[in-house]
C-alpha cells in the first residue's frame, strides 16, 4: 500500500511538472490540477471535522479550557448552519460577520500590536548584539518615516531615508532571503518528487 501511494504521488508530480515543459501533457496537467482543486475544497471539510473531533474529545474529558471548546463547537455549527441555509449575503450572516468574526480577529490584531511592541522593546535585552541594534534602529526609522507631523511629512526621514531603506536596503535583503527560500522550496519539492521524503502513507 505504501508503495502504491508513493507511485501515485511521484507519477502525479512528474506529470504536472512535465506539463509545463511539454504541451502534449498540458491536458493531463489541467486534469490533475482540477482534481487537486476539488480535493483541496473537500479537505477543508476534513479539517473542520478534525477541529470538531479534537474539541469534542476535550469536552468529553473535561480538560482545562473545555468550556471554550464547547463554545467553539457551538459557534461552528451555528455559523455553518446559517451559512448553508441563509446564504452569506443574508443579514444574519452579516451580523455574525460584523459582530463576531471581524471583532474577534481585529482584537487579535490589536493584541498583536502590543506583542510586537513588547518584543521590540525587549529585543536588546534578549540579544544585545549588532544585529539587534540595527534591527531596532531600522524599525524606529521606518516608524518615524511613516508618520507625519502636524506640519507635514518629516523632512529627510519621511521623504528620502524611509523610501531608500525600504526599497533598497530592506528589499535587497528580502530578495536574497526569498531566493534562498525559493531554492529550499525547490529542493523540498524535488525530494518529494523523487520519493526521498514521503509525508504520506506512513514510514
Amino acid at each position, binding site marked *: 500500500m505504501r508503495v502504491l501511494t508513493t507511485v501515485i504521488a511521484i507519477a502525479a508530480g512528474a506529470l504536472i*511538472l512535465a506539463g*509545463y*515543459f511539454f504541451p502534449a501533457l498540458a491536458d493531463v496537467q489541467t486534469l490533475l490540477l482540477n482534481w*487537486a*482543486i476539488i*480535493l*483541496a475544497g473537500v*479537505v*477543508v*471539510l*476534513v*479539517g*473542520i471535522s*478534525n*477541529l470538531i*473531533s*479534537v474539541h469534542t474529545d476535550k469536552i468529553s474529558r473535561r*480538560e482545562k*479550557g473545555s468550556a*471554550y471548546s464547547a463554545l467553539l463547537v457551538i459557534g461552528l455549527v451555528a455559523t455553518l448552519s446559517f451559512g448553508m441555509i441563509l446564504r452569506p449575503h443574508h443579514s444574519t450572516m452579516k451580523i455574525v460577520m460584523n459582530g463576531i468574526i471581524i471583532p*474577534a*480577529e481585529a482584537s*487579535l*490584531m490589536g*493584541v*498583536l500590536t502590543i*506583542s*510586537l511592541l513588547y*518584543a*521590540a522593546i525587549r*529585543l536588546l535585552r534578549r*540579544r544585545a548584539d549588532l544585529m539587534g541594534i540595527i*534591527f531596532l534602529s531600522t524599525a524606529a526609522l521606518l516608524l518615524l518615516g511613516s508618520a507625519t507631523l502636524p506640519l507635514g511629512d518629516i523632512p529627510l526621514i519621511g521623504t528620502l531615508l524611509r523610501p531608500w531603506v525600504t526599497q533598497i536596503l530592506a528589499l535587497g535583503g*528580502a530578495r*536574497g*532571503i*526569498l*531566493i*534562498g*527560500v*525559493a*531554492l*529550499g*522550496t*525547490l*529542493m*523540498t*519539492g*524535488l*525530494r*518529494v*518528487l*523523487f520519493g*526521498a*521524503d514521503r*509525508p*504520506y*502513507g*506512513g*514510514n
Partner: protein
Amino acid sequence: MTSLVILSLSGALLLGITLWKRKSPAMLREIPAFTRLYRTLGLSVEDGTRLHVSLGSGSLLDTSGGSALAGLAMLRIIAERTSDSDKPVVASVGNPPFGLLMQDTLQAGYQAAGADELYIPTMGRVTGLTPFGYAAGAMHISKNEEVSANILVGHFSSEVALLAEASDRENEIMIGASDNLTGQAVLFASTQDALIGEELFAAGAYLNAGASHTASLTVQDILRWLVIAALLGGAFAKFAGII
C-alpha cells in the same frame, strides 16, 4: 527552457550528492537554534513534558507548502524520538490538507519507534482555517497542555507574534522558522534563536533525517552561487550595455 535546465541540474545534483553523502558524514555549521532544539528534545523527555510543533498556515498548493513540508520532515524525527515520552508531541496546523499529512507523519514516527500503539490521532490538530484563527487555536496549547517548548517551522506571518507571546507568558522555549519575511522579523524579535531564510529547510539535515536532506543543503549552496554569479554577471552586463 531555462527552468527545465535548472530543474534537471538540480535533480541530477540532488541524486548524485545523496548517494555520495551516504558514505561520508555531513559537516554542518553550528546553528544555535538546532543545538537548542537537540537539548530541548532530551529535556522534554526527561521532564515528562510535551513538545508543541506547529506547521503554520501554509497551503499545500502554493509555494508556502515547501516550508510546511520541511516542517513535516522535522515533525517525523521529533515524533520518533519523543515517542517514549510521558507526554507525546502535539502538532498543530492552519491548513486542512497539511492536517492530514501531519497525522500521517505522526503515525509514521511512532511506527518507526515501534510504539504504534501510543499514537493518538487527536495529537495532530487543525486549530483554524485562517492565520489568526489558527494562531488563536494554537495559543491555548502552550497554556493548557504542559508544553515545555514550542517548535514553529512552516509558513507564519505576523500572527506568530501571538504564539510567541503565549510561549513567553508560560516561560517556554520557542524555536521558530518561517519562509515569510514578516514572520521572520517577528520571530527575530520574539525568540532567542530564530532561523532566518532557508535555515528552516536545514532542519531535516540537522536532525539526521537522511542523506537526501544533507544533499539538499549542498545543492542549495551550489545553486545559490550560480544565482549570485548570474545576478552579478547580469548586473555587470546591464551596466556595460551588453544586454
